[in-house]
């Protein structure tokens, strides 16, 4: 357990954002069951910047879905920002996803028929934010990711990097406590990857807790903590990013 609280300058004890206790996830029934997560125990504090790494099929996405409240553990407990989410029903989970979590996906997942601005306003519609405030906040979020001049463009009029920035703006616009990204740079070239990582870095500096899945050591090295998965288990929960080069798992 990482007990140091070096990121928290003000309070001597950082708030715990993610706490997983003995989490298991089993897919399928009968003989073809897959233990996608096995007895995962993990704590992430407010303000941390983590990378989840591991071989393909090791359970990283399953883990992200779990902490993103898209899925519930088969057994075990999950506390998000102090709330026990494993026991919540579907609509409570939807509410938690809306208010507490921002998602960024590898394939961006923008609505193709509406503008960047409208894409970013979408989470606030589900949060019942008044229309005027919605627009204001969406513009601010797009400016934060450097797209203040692309408000009215549709996704197909934007580059991949720009689309991912719209997706980041959408993820942060409801002021979540946790920003999750599953291979956010997987579909981008190295230059655009750097731009996206810069945005994540800036958000984290301002206090946002960020957890991302990545295959690339380059990407992971921008974070401050690496969590390593193998066969559904956490085998290293606090690797130093700078040690990644010599680490081969």
């Amino acid at each position, binding site marked *: 357990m990482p007990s140091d609280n070096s990121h928290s300058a003000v309070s001597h004890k950082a708030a715990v954002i993610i706490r997983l206790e003995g989490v298991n996830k089993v897919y399928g029934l009968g003989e073809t069951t897959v233990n996608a997560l096995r007895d995962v125990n993990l704590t992430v504090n407010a303000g941390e910047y983590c990378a989840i790494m591991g071989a393909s099929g090791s359970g990283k996405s399953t883990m992200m879905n779990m902490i993103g409240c898209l899925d519930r553990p088969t057994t075990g407990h999950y506390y998000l920002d102090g709330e026990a989410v494993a026991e919540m029903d579907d609509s409570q989970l939807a509410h938690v996803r809306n208010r507490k979590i921002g998602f960024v996906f590898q394939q961006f997942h923008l609505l193709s028929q509406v503008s960047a601005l409208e894409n970013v306003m979408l*989470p606030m519609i*589900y949060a019942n934010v008044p229309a005027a405030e919605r627009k204001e906040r969406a513009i601010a979020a797009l400016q934060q990711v450097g797209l203040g001049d692309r408000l009215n463009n549709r996704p197909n009029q934007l580059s991949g990097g720009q689309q991912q920035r719209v997706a980041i703006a959408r993820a942060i616009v409801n002021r979540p406590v946790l920003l999750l990204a599953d291979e956010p740079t997987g579909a981008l070239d190295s230059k655009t990857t750097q731009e996206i990582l810069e945005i994540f870095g800036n958000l984290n500096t301002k206090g946002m807790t960020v957890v991302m899945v990545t295959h690339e050591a380059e990407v992971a090295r921008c974070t401050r903590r690496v969590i390593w998965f193998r066969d559904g288990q956490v085998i290293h929960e606090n690797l130093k990013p700078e040690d990644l080069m010599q680490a081969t798992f």
Partner: protein
Amino acid sequence: MDLVESVKMATATLTGNRLRSALTMLGMIIGNASVVAMIGIGEGAQRFAADQFKSLGPNVLFIVPGNDNARNRTLNIPKTLVLGDAKAIAEQVPSINDVAPQLQNQAPVVYGNKRKSTLVIGTTERFAIVRDYNVARGRFITQQEVQRGTPVAVIGSKLAETLFGTKNPLGERVRVRGLSFKIIGLLASKGSFLGNNQDDVLLVPLSTLSSRLTGRTSPYGVEVTFISVSAKDKSQMAAAKTQITNLLRLRHKIVTEDDFTVRSQDEALSIIGAVTGALTIMLVAIAGISLLVGGIGIMNIMLVSVTERTQEIGLRKAIGATQSDILIQFLIESIILSAAGGIIGIMIGAGTVVMVGVLTPLKSSVSMPAIALAVSVSGGIGVFFGVVPAQRAARLDPIVALRSN
């Protein structure tokens, strides 16, 4: 999420896919247009029939010989309606205004080298009043002429046009079966009744026709084809019918089956009403089936739409849409499709009804109940056929949905 946002979202999706939305609405458009048109035209037909009967004269009862409802059909009931019956009714039935017996026969009417087979009606001076005919020129047959059997005639406007063209027929003579009649009056046009032109007639004194032309008499006196009676007012019709029936039963010494029938317009009208009503119901049923097909079309497209938009649904759920948010969004889409289709259909149907009213004698008009029916049915169809696709969308697992391609 509030309803306004849901409606905006649904409209954006539907207008983003214009052609598909339009084609999906087509079923509803056709269904609603037919419902409104069918009901409007059906009601127009009923109104047309009612007006036709009014043209027979106000509060008229017809007494015809024979009895269609006789239980013993094998017994050939003698048709013995005679002039004396008409006189007795006029004298003894208190609830009536006037009586006009009529004896009629299809016969050729000749003028110069023109010849036209026409309904020649022998009647009395009361006929014009009972049957609501107006004389446009000249005068009607008088009581003296009926008593004396004078060979004079009043000509219908259609027959006059056929025989005389634009020439004034008054004072001219026409021949019917060798007998010459002097034209003393020209009737104002009355239009047709159920396809029979009421203006293609020649009216002559009943006595003239019976004694000199048909010669039809029975042991009881001069036989008539039927007797028209006008009741004092509408409320007296039933009384008049009973009184006439009783009187004629006495006169004809009837102990078992009547040998005559008293018919009122209302009865005939109710039969026609029943027929057109049944026709309307059938047409509406057909229109209803097309609404059903339209609804299934909507369901089909909505199911396709859910499949196509699986990723979008997953994304919406990932950023916080609840099951009911998704359900409502898809439900509103199908409701908009069916309601918009309904409204367009209603407008087309109403347009058709108005056009039919202008172009044909059917006095069709847009029926408000028909519109109410169409609106509620199409709204209901949107909900009914939208529920299954919307539920399918709402229940999608966000992880599976996001991963789908």
